[in-house]
């Protein structure tokens, strides 16, 4: 077996228009149900941003909608906090980018499950940085950190 060789002129690469790309995964309502399936209702604590999830009169947790800048455009995501203020889940709601990339793979970053506002979130530290997504990862890391700082200890 031998390799077949192609020359890909730079012009050919450039001739592909980078499509604006938007991927809508979940609406806010759908994401709320995913995060707290047992919740009977969601009370809006801060309009369009924070909801309290209640199940049978008990607080199941909090749902926070946030938006960070990805490479160029906004990424909408939701952080679900447990009633004690720890991250229960992070779900992407909508991803928008002005380039194509691996269309099924807008890569960006981070693992936030179990983080509380006491634990440091940093690039190259507990959250891994990956090739080519430095801007996205920095902004997402800052986003979840901001959400935790703002709400982690305050929502009870």
């Amino acid at each position: 077996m031998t390799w077949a060789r192609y020359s890909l002129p730079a012009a050919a690469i450039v001739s592909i228009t980078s499509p604006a790309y938007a991927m809508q995964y979940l609406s806010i309502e759908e994401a709320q149900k995913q995060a707290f399936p047992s919740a009977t209702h969601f009370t809006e604590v801060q309009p369009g941003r924070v909801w309290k999830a209640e199940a049978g009169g008990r607080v199941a947790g909090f749902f926070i909608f946030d938006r960070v800048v990805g490479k160029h455009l906004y990424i909408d995501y939701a952080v679900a906090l447990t009633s004690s203020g720890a991250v229960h889940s992070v779900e992407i709601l909508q991803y928008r980018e002005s380039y194509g990339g691996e269309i099924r793979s807008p890569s960006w970053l981070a693992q936030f499950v179990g983080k509380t506002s006491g634990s440091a979130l940093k690039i190259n530290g507990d959250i891994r940085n990956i090739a080519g997504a430095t801007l996205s990862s920095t902004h997402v890391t800052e986003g979840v950190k901001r959400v935790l700082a703002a709400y982690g200890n305050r929502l009870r």
Partner: protein
Amino acid sequence: MAIASDKVRRARPLLGTFVEIEAAGAAKSKMDAAIDAAFEAVAQVHRLMSFHEDDSDVSRLNREAWLRPVKVDAWTFRVLEAAVELHRRSKGIFDIAIAATLQNMGLLPRPDGDPPAAVDGRLFDSIELLEDLMVRFGHRDVRIDLGGIAKGFAVDRALEVLRGFGLASGLVNAGGDLAAFGREPQTIHIRHPRDPRRLMCRVEITDEALASTARRFDLLSSAETTGSAIIDPATGKPTDVIDGATVRAGSCMMADALTKIVMICGTEAIEWLELHNASALLISSDGDVRITPDWHHAVHLAA
């Protein structure tokens, strides 16, 4: 009653990247349950194999396995077995004991109190896989990182979970390492490694896995291209012959691992690709694209 066009796709930040899972051809409630369970499998791999989590199997091994045998999860053991086998077959090119080099380069963090470890190409040989999922390191300087293989393994586990739900089709994509099942081919667009805003080609896959990797081009700190996060164990330096590689294989773990071998060996990797019944596309630093002959039909270059 399932509606054929019904499809659910969700995304979560896991494994240090952005993991997308798609389910199709079943009732909505079934697809939701399948995706939840598949994300849980990915999260479990993250908990077990992250270099960054203090209580992961990998961190426990790096801290303690040189002192005493450490028991690991069956999944971690499977990945270690595969890594040992790949190391042997690739004559040392695939090396999970490269973490100390990555730490020295600032590409991996150094936990508090962890002194700089000596870098020695033979450290891998002191990794011992014992009975009952026990692992021992024969040398205190061994630091492993499963970053070159665990993401693919996680994709395989998540896909296995989706299959178990009896869906018509499914796809799992962990930041470019992906696998799919189902009758219809899935089209994947691949970025140009030198300019991630551009698409270089599209590839069709059916019931198989695809993994891509590229050198890091850090445009923020310098206009010059930087080295890759893939280290050639023979030199201890980042690879620089290949700008990017995409590998097709039966499992995503194998595709993921083989991209590392292609990045290090370039066209010489063909013998390992053949051995594992895999195909590849690589972009050398002179701009040429090379494709293994068994794969032309599936790759559509942008030109």
